[in-house]
């Protein structure tokens, strides 16, 4: 479904890569948490999957297509197979809930009849059946995020990318959103969620990929936000870098901990 092959992403004017030689594979229907500090490369990873950015080196395959070979004018059609949800919802403030969700279908050329059928369906699925005519500012944060999710999945995408979808929400509302994402995942959609929310990751016990300074330091089935197990990867040949958490608790040196705060913070946005 998604395969990264030695992918490195360098932003101009910055010597340190946002992603450094990342290789991974995500299968159909998986639910994956992408964790790591700000600036560790989570957002860059999502942007690369969307082909909003080009990798500096390496190959990315998404839905059986090599993204480097995808012509620019075909990118829109490719993106119709992906849904995206953001921390800040990104709804259109002057459009109603219905219109916000319908917008996706309108601009991709769906018929009026299809829209009239699909939008109420998806609103019902995210639990907003009675609020179709509300404007975004009349809704709570959790409801707004549900609208955003409805917009992302109304096209029935194969992959749903969520960039800290619970970042602006309280724990209880977050739990509701997670239930919704779980249900979407259960219907066969691959869900990739970047998050800082340790509680959610620990509770869900799904696949966890941890990034530190653009490198995968952990890829664990049914993991937590911080691992107790010893991760499988043994990499990082160059230099003095010691991956934090790469060892038992006793081995984690104070020095490695101190190196975690990232000078690249916020660069990937």
């Amino acid at each position: 479904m998604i395969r990264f092959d030695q992918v490195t992403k360098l932003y101009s004017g910055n010597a340190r890569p946002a992603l450094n030689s990342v290789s991974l594979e995500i299968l159909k229907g998986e639910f994956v948490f992408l964790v790591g500090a700000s600036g560790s490369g989570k957002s860059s990873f999502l942007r690369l999957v969307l082909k909003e950015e080009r990798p500096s080196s390496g190959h990315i395959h998404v839905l059986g297509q090599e993204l480097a070979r995808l012509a620019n004018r075909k990118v829109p059609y490719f993106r119709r197979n992906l849904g995206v949800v953001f921390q800040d919802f990104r709804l259109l403030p002057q459009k109603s809930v219905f219109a916000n969700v319908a917008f996706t279908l309108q601009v991709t050329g769906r018929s009026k009849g299809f829209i009239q059928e699909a939008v109420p369906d998806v609103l019902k699925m995210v639990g907003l059946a009675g609020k179709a005519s509300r404007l975004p500012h009349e809704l709570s944060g959790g409801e707004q995020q549900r609208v955003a999710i409805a917009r992302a999945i109304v096209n029935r995408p194969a992959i749903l990318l969520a960039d800290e979808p619970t970042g602006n929400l309280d724990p209880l509302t977050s739990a509701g959103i997670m239930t919704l994402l779980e249900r979407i995942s259960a219907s066969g959609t691959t869900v990739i969620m970047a998050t800082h929310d340790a509680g959610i990751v620990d509770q869900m016990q799904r696949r966890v990929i941890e990034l530190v300074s653009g490198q995968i330091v952990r890829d664990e089935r049914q993991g937590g936000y911080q691992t107790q197990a010893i991760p499988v990867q043994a990499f990082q040949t160059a230099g003095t870098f010691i991956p934090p958490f790469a060892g038992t608790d006793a081995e984690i040196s104070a020095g490695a901990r101190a190196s975690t705060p990232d000078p690249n913070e916020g660069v990937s946005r």
Partner: protein
Amino acid sequence: MRFSLIMSEVAHGLRRNVSMVISVVLVTFISLTFVGAAILLQAQIGQMKGYWYDRAQVAVYFCTASSDLKNCNSTEATAAQKAAVKAQLASAALAPLVKRVEFESHDQAFERYKTQFADSQFANFVSPEFLNEAYWVNLKNPLQADVLRESLGSLPGVEEVKDQRKYLDPIFSALNAASVTAISIASLMLVAAALLIATTIRLSAFSRRRELGIMRLVGASNRFIQTPFILEGVISALVGSVLAAGAVVAIVRFFVQGFLGSTIQTGTSLIGMTDALLVAPVLLLIGAVLAAASAGVAINRYLKV
């Protein structure tokens, strides 16, 4: 469905950007009016050349008793000298160039003079023998007048070989200068118009950047995203072009045909409505293409993946 959606986007964009749209309309209006005026001036020059060159004759003036120019020495041209000129005109070298030759005697010249200057008192002081006898030559190709001058100018008894076209040249160069001026003003204004359209579209896109961001995210095709903006530019430029076309037609109708036509009274050599109606679609086309190109370039920035 999609068409109506695009059109409502266009209408929305035009409404939101009214002041910019008005300035685009005005700038395209003025610049295309200049373009139209330049084209009309060129058409006028062509028309006049065609009209006058056809009628312009080469005059071979013979000496009179009162002329003291190089060949004459104040003696009237003899019959033999006139015959020599006539023979020369009929020779194998010149005959193919000549369409028609007419001889004008002293008396005929005097008659013409009297009608031409009927209002003036000069007619009273002139007598037939002061006026040159002449051969009036119509050439097949008016541009070959020099050949005639070279071969006849130095013959004895010939005072001067005069190409009437020479009288028209200052008029043509004045008209040419005017049309060059119009074209240079027009091209400066067209640059301004193109930049203004690009800025307008960029502003419009900026005010809709949220929608654009979401459109790109959910996979709206580039053409779908582009079209409303390009249409926005084209529509506002087309309004300006229509005004310019109207202005050009009005100029021809009221200034050229109405004012000039009645004052100069040589209606045949002036451009008419057909020329104006030919220029109008050219202006519309220039306006539309210019707007589509600059709006397309402007919006392209928002489509980069």
